[in-house]
């Protein structure tokens, strides 16, 4: 084997110009007219995918994401979309087919949850390692055993180190908006990573809401066509990164200890880039629609002067905002931080927004057994280590297996925080909401 056979398949040529035809024109005038639809979260996702000119959808049914693939199947059956829909025989094959389709140059989408996402686990690493910008909606659901079809975030939290971008939404409107943004983020030349959009099972996936949607042309202008970054092939040619018989490329090779590490380092760099890109895309979308979600990474609610605050991910933020409002009306300086982007983790934003708070309760809708708290606690506490002033931080595990968490429960958490702030010490680090013990 000669040196001429070197395949730099994974090296992106930073100087190579991106195909102008595939470029999204950020300055194009977009008709911001919107229509109001009655959608549940799943339907909102399916509608956003429909408008995004997705080439290949490969998926397998699982509650509570099934409505997404059912709805999309209707669009396919009625000729409303130009998409190859592969109804695979498992989620594992769904993700493999998505990776292969994406590697062939197709814009690719799938949806899953719970056991389905767990079955995909192996392939999630392959998707991010192959730099295939797949978008996946995850209708967050508990994992077996015991079997449970209801909502919690154990499924996607268990995939946090698989190299995917994770964005969690609060409601159906945000689910629609975020799917449109997700294609732009995933396919951005500086990112080229797959994206999970998490929506809480049933609470968001199955709850009917009013959702404002853009007209098809406006979405087309915003999302644009898939951008393929240029790479240098083993023949020394600079070509778009895809499986193309005219420009042969070896994708998904074996890399030994002499190269593997560099591949992983590049993924970390892409994650760093994603922090900026997620915000850019969100801001651009906000200009078009008038809708924004904090700074895209976090949403701080009445946090500026807050003495006690709750941190949560997903739909619980809606309930928590009501509780904050109520407490504020009573003169309590309560606030909320919603983590919208969980990967890449916005450590600086979290640190800056919480470092003047006295006591913080992190809400975890999943468990890390034996880990002294859930995944969100670990991340938040880690981010606060470098803060100039560190708040007292406690964890509240809530809502596992779909257990309802109501305003009264969250009010109790704030009451606890009040005591913690007053005593200047925490009781138990890990606490449980609404649990029989």
């Amino acid at each position, binding site marked *: *084997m*000669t040196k001429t*056979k*070197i*395949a*730099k*398949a*994974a090296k992106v040529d930073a100087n190579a110009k991106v195909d102008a035809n595939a470029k999204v024109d950020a300055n194009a005038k977009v008709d911001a007219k919107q229509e109001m639809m009655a959608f549940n979260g799943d339907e909102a996702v399916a509608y956003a995918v429909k408008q995004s000119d997705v*080439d*290949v959808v*490969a998926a397998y049914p699982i509650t509570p994401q099934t409505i997404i693939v059912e709805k999309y199947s209707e669009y396919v059956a009625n000729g409303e979309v*130009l*998409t*190859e829909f*592969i*109804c*695979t*025989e*498992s989620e*594992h*094959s*769904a993700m*493999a*087919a*998505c*990776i*292969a*389709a*994406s*590697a*062939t*140059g*197709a814009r*690719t989408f799938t949806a899953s949850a719970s056991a389905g996402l767990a079955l995909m686990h*192996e*392939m999630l690493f*392959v998707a991010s390692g*192959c730099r295939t910008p797949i978008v996946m909606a995850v209708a967050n659901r508990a994992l077996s055993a015991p079997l449970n079809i209801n909502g919690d975030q154990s499924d996607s939290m268990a995939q946090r180190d698989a190299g995917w971008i994770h964005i969690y939404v609060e409601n159906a409107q945000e689910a629609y908006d975020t799917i449109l943004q997700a294609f732009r983020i995933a396919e951005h030349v500086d990112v080229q990573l797959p994206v999970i959009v998490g929506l809480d099972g049933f609470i968001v996936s199955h709850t009917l809401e009013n959702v404002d949607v853009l007209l098809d042309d406006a979405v087309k202008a915003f999302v644009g066509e898939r951008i393929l970054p240029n790479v240098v092939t*083993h023949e020394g040619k600079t070509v778009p990164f895809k*499986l*193309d*018989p*005219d*420009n*042969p*490329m*070896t*994708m*998904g*090779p*074996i*890399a*030994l200890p002499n*190269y593997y590490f560099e591949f992983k380092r590049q993924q970390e760099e892409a994650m760093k880039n994603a922090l900026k890109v997620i915000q850019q895309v969100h801001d651009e979308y906000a200009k078009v629609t008038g809708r924004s979600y904090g700074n895209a990474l976090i949403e701080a609610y009445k946090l500026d002067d807050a003495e006690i605050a709750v941190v949560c991910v997903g739909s619980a933020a809606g309930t928590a905002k009501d509780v904050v409002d109520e407490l504020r009306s009573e003169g309590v300086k309560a606030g909320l931080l919603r983590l919208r982007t969980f990967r890449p983790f916005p450590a600086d934003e979290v640190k800056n927004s919480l470092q003047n708070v006295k006591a913080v309760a992190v809400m975890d809708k999943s468990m890390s057994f034996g880990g002294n708290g859930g995944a969100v606690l670990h991340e938040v506490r880690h981010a606060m280590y470098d803060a100039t002033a560190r708040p007292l931080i406690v964890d509240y595990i809530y809502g596992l297996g779909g257990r309802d968490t109501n305003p009264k429960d969250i009010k109790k958490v704030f009451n606890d925080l009040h005591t913690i702030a007053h005593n200047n010490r925490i009781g138990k680090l890990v606490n449980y909401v609404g649990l029989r013990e």
Partner: protein
Amino acid sequence: MTTQEWKFTAKDIALKPDIFLPGHRACAGCGPANVLRMVMKATRGPTIVTEATGCMEVVSSIYPYTSWSVPWLHTAFETAAANASGIEAALKILKKKGKVKQDHVDVIAFAGDGGTYDIGIQALSGAVERGHDFLFILYDNEGYMNTGIQRSGGTPMGAATTTTPAGTVMLGKLQHKKPITDIMVAHEMEYVATATPYYWRDMLQKVRKGLEVEGPAFLHIFAPCPRGWRSDPAKTIEYTKLAVESCVFPVYEVVKGKYELSTPSKLIALAPQKKKPVTEYLKGQGRYRHLFTPQGKHVVDEIQRWTDDRWAKLQKKVEQTA
């Protein structure tokens, strides 16, 4: 295009540039590497290859080198057929949208016996049921050779592997080979065939036929592993002849459900006295060494009985579907 027009002469094959390039890290006498090199000579135009994890994937794609002069994708062990589904679906829709230039691109999925009989069978079955247009080629070296010679569903009875060692109470693998070709025929696919590299023209013609099918096609190729079989690397191709002559591995085609023996096996059916005993094939392979002992005799007898039974059943299927 008829078989005659393909003109797979030795000269044609020699003159056609290699697609599976030299410099890969396969062992001396590797059956699968020979098979891949020859199979790729039978391709008919733009082709995308996807491979399951396994020997051939590992020896041909060690970054930053590659032995593939066509686009090639590997994702995981059990995913060759699922990958092919995704590639085919993407090509189809991107062609419709004017984003693929080629009139047609063939998709070939390669997997070893582990990636076909065992971990990959679900994805294969699903992809065939969905009717994707691709050729799945099983290179069968009868074990997990890449991980150090463990038994698979494709390992034959009596063979010693590292997970079915020849011990004092167990004499190699206790079970017969899974009838993978029958399983694929049961999918009612248009084209299923078996081949060995000794009968190389027959093998290449089957590759071409499989590619020409509009829909899924399955080709089972016998590919010895000298390391795993503890056999002489110089005799790799010879074993693929003996396997046919002893009817351990008959070569045949099943076209739209109709069974037909290919010439080498047909000649044995016509002149049964030419059929060699399985011992002719087994002897010399270190993996069967322990069977050539008084206590191993009953295993050899069982291998012979099973081989005869399978061969009789195959001939019956040929008659029944004629």
